[in-house]
């Protein structure tokens, strides 16, 4: 990991100075937005295929089981192997992702046994995995990065503080031994603890001990004042590295196998017949999803992550009919959700207004005594922002939105009503009953609308030059006739469906 970070930094140094990079990354907002954005992009790409396969809730299953995987891997590494694993340790990530995939296989097996229905199998598996993980966390794990709160919401807000320091210039690592001139010594009792006596008791043995001996990295050495020239340092948040790698992997997977993923999602039988192994692709997808869920755990916890898989693709699904565009749009919505979500957590809604003002207003209006500063969870706010975008897409989508569907239906009804009038005129024009059926004054008798509505529609038809009035009788113009004929051809002569 450390070496890979070095590569990233070297690449970035082509464009920015070290100072700029450090300032940028030390802002909690920038780091949180980058990590949130990366999770959102990889989640949106994979979630799109999940949605189209009708497997959205599989991300729910995976995120719950991945938690158990992380906890178990964490415990194995600490207790059995005596390591101090980081959530960015590759072994932990691989182990936990494997647990996620294994459980997908297991739930598939359970409902194939036929004893329990699929929904019940999933409904039982989620909380069980989660329950075991929570019991383990609360009983057996004592670690700052692993408590119930972290499980719930993650620590994306403090991700900027957990860094690796990379030294670029004047990198002087310092080792202080008892012989070094900088070594400091203090007298310490060497057998007090063993014998359970105080330093003043009789029999206490003392020796001189070096209190600052050890190895100092350039950053530590500079902080301890051991160096004269300041080393050129870059502090790189660890979470960014892991999530960047996972996002690159996801991106590569989706880009390289785009054609294969599309085919096996749309028509698995044809994919199999053409030799594309849909089963292998299915499990490759599950592995990638598990990796993203593990990588996202530290930042957003194990429940909110499912929003990153489900909500942006659902929004894009409403907005477009093209798979490539759906992938791009859902990534953009996810990333925008991450960006504006940070602002929301700090009280600003899209920069339009402040939540604090709303709270103040509520207090004034209803005398509620609410606290008037809004400061909330970053990860949850990112999800809320995505939901807001989803909601906007649902209402406003030009093709499938609530608004456009409603308008279209209104329009259709109106159009249809006009056609009814035109057809009525067409049918009776020139017949014996013409005067009876088509008189301007009594025309409304023949329709289901009140006289005023009919009058208004007649006026509209007149102004559109579709009808004219002669001798108090309504007649079709040539345009009007054409309109009726087109309608008959296109709408009435439909293909009949043989059942």
């Amino acid at each position, binding site marked *: 990991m450390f070496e890979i970070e070095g590569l990233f930094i070297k690449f970035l140094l082509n464009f920015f100075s070290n100072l700029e990079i450090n300032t940028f990354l030390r802002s909690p907002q920038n780091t949180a937005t980058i990590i949130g954005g990366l999770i959102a992009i990889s989640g949106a790409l994979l979630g799109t295929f999940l*949605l189209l396969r*009708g*497997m*959205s*809730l599989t*991300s*729910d299953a995976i995120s719950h089981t991945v938690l158990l995987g992380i906890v178990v891997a964490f415990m194995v590494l600490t207790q059995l192997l005596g390591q101090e694993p980081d959530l960015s340790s590759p072994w932990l990530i691989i182990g936990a992702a494997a647990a996620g995939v294994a459980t997908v296989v297991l739930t598939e097996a359970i409902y194939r*046994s036929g*004893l*329990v*229905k699929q*929904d*019940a199998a*999933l*409904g*039982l598996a*989620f*909380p*069980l995995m*989660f*329950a*075991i993980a*929570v*019991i383990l966390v*609360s*009983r057996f794990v004592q670690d700052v990065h692993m408590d*119930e709160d972290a499980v*719930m*919401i993650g620590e994306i807000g403090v991700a900027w503080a957990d860094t690796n320091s990379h030294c670029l210039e004047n990198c002087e690592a310092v080792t202080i031994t008892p012989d070094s001139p900088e070594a400091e010594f203090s007298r310490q009792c060497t057998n007090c603890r063993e014998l359970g006596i105080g330093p003043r008791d009789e029999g206490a043995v003392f020796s001189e001990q070096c209190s600052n001996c050890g190895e100092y990295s350039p950053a530590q050495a500079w902080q301890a004042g051991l160096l004269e020239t300041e080393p050129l340092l870059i502090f790189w948040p660890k979470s960014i590295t892991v999530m960047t790698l996972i996002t690159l992997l996801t991106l590569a997977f989706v880009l390289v196998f785009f054609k294969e993923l599309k085919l096996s999602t749309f028509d698995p039988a044809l994919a199999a017949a053409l030799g594309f192994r849909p089963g292998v692709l299915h499990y490759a997808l599950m592995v990638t999803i598990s990796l993203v869920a593990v990588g996202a755990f530290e930042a957003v916890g194990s*429940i*909110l992550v*499912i*929003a990153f*898989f*489900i*909500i942006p693709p*659902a929004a894009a*699904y*409403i907005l477009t009919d093209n798979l490539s565009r759906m992938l791009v749009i859902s990534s953009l919505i996810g990333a925008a959700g991450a960006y504006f979500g940070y602002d929301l*957590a700090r009280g600003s809604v899209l920069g339009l207004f402040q939540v604090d003002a709303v709270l103040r207003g509520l207090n004034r209006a209803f005398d*509620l005594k*609410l*606290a008037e*500063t*809004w*400061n*909330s*969870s970053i*990860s*949850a*706010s990112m*999800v*809320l922002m*995505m*939901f807001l975008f*989803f909601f906007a897409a*649902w209402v406003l989508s030009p093709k*499938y939105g*609530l608004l456009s*569907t409603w308008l279209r239906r209104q329009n259709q009804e109106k159009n249809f009503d006009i056609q009814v009038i035109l057809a009525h005129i067409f049918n009776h024009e020139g017949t014996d009953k013409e005067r009876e059926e088509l008189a301007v004054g009594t025309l409304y008798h023949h329709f289901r609308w009140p006289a005023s509505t009919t009058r208004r529609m007649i006026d509209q038809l007149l102004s559109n030059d579709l009808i004219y009035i002669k001798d108090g009788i309504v007649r079709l113009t040539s345009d009007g006739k054409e309109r009726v004929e087109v309608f008959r051809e296109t709408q009435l002569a439909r293909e009949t469906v043989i059942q």
Partner: protein
Amino acid sequence: MLPGFSPEDRRVWLLIGAITLITLLFLPYSQFVLGVRYDYTLRTVAIGGSLLGIISGVLGCFAVLRQQSLMGDALSHAALPGVAIAFLLAGRELGFLLIGAGVASWLGVQFIRLLTDTTRIKQDTAMGIVLASWFAAGIALLAYIQARPDASQAGLDTFIFGQAAAIVEKDVRLIAGIGLATMFLLVLFWKEFKLITFDAEFAGANGFRVNLFSTLLSTLIVVAIVLGLQLAGVIMMVGMLIAPGIAARQWTNKLTQMVTLAAIFGGFSGGVGAIISALDTDLPTGPMIIVVAFLLVVISISIAPQRGLIWQLLRQRQDQKRFAAQMVLDDLFHYAYDHDSLSTVVPESFLKGMRGSAVKQGLQQLVNKDQVQPVNGGWQLTEAGRQAAADNATNTLMWDLYRQYNQTLDLPLIAEDRQRDIRELLPETAIHKLEKILQEELA
């Protein structure tokens, strides 16, 4: 012997009695032998826990049977923002918190329905959207509440993982009151609920107001979820809801018995989970209840008579043994018949491909009866074998003819069981008629 009870009924009631007895014995055992002190607090917690377990177990049966388990999951997650808003408006008053939770859940359901009705988004995705965003709203509100200077929010986040120790006597009374009301409704409309659960279409055709009762039942399920939140928490509530029902389903095919069993399973896991976690405050209650309930499910799935995995395995082996010989003989005969000579040597790989591991048993039995013999790597029918196989084939043909002509010949109706000899099942006159047609067919 009790009159009017089938052996299956007796077994279920026996099981119910046994579990009740164990629970009753466990109380003095834990008190006097294990030294658990049932002080006032623990008693409250235990009673509250089992009451909630009973309510959610009973109503969970309907969620399981109506295949709404995942909906239950979405609903319980969706309750969280309601709890938070109710707290902001009215403080930590259980009644208000539950109303808030119920309203939020209900809004979630409506949103899911609206979404699936007006877009091409499918139900599972819609549930995922509501689950995640409602939950996020709840978390955001909780974070806001916890940032307040006065620490009056104590105990609110127990709604996430559940905390039995937070239940006080007033709460138990409220739970018991609402629980009694739901049970009353359930008994009152039992017939209707049963019908719409098993066959909504039929119920509608028979003039039952399906929508009304369906909504009522869903509402009761929401009530059960909301009540249970304090004990099991929003994330794990669905487990407490459905696990007792799933376990009970394995033991019986009757709704009454299933619901009774689920009540007992639910009460047991709720009570035990609450007691364990109350004794050790580090342990959230929700996970303990889920683990206990899941153990009940595992036990039920493995050992329940008829449906249980162990019984299924045993039955499969028995069936295999009983039918292996006949199946293999049939396979041999067909293969040989299709290859023009009954003395054809049939490769063993073909038999294995058809029947798998049962082939060995079958062949062994046939060899014992002297009906087949091994011939260089394959198997061949002996004279006795050909006779037996031909008899079987005739039997199959007779069954075919029975199916074809039972209406025209006005034959008595019998269940098709081709493994049995049709001559034993039909009266002689019917057999004669069929044999006559058989002669014509063969000629």
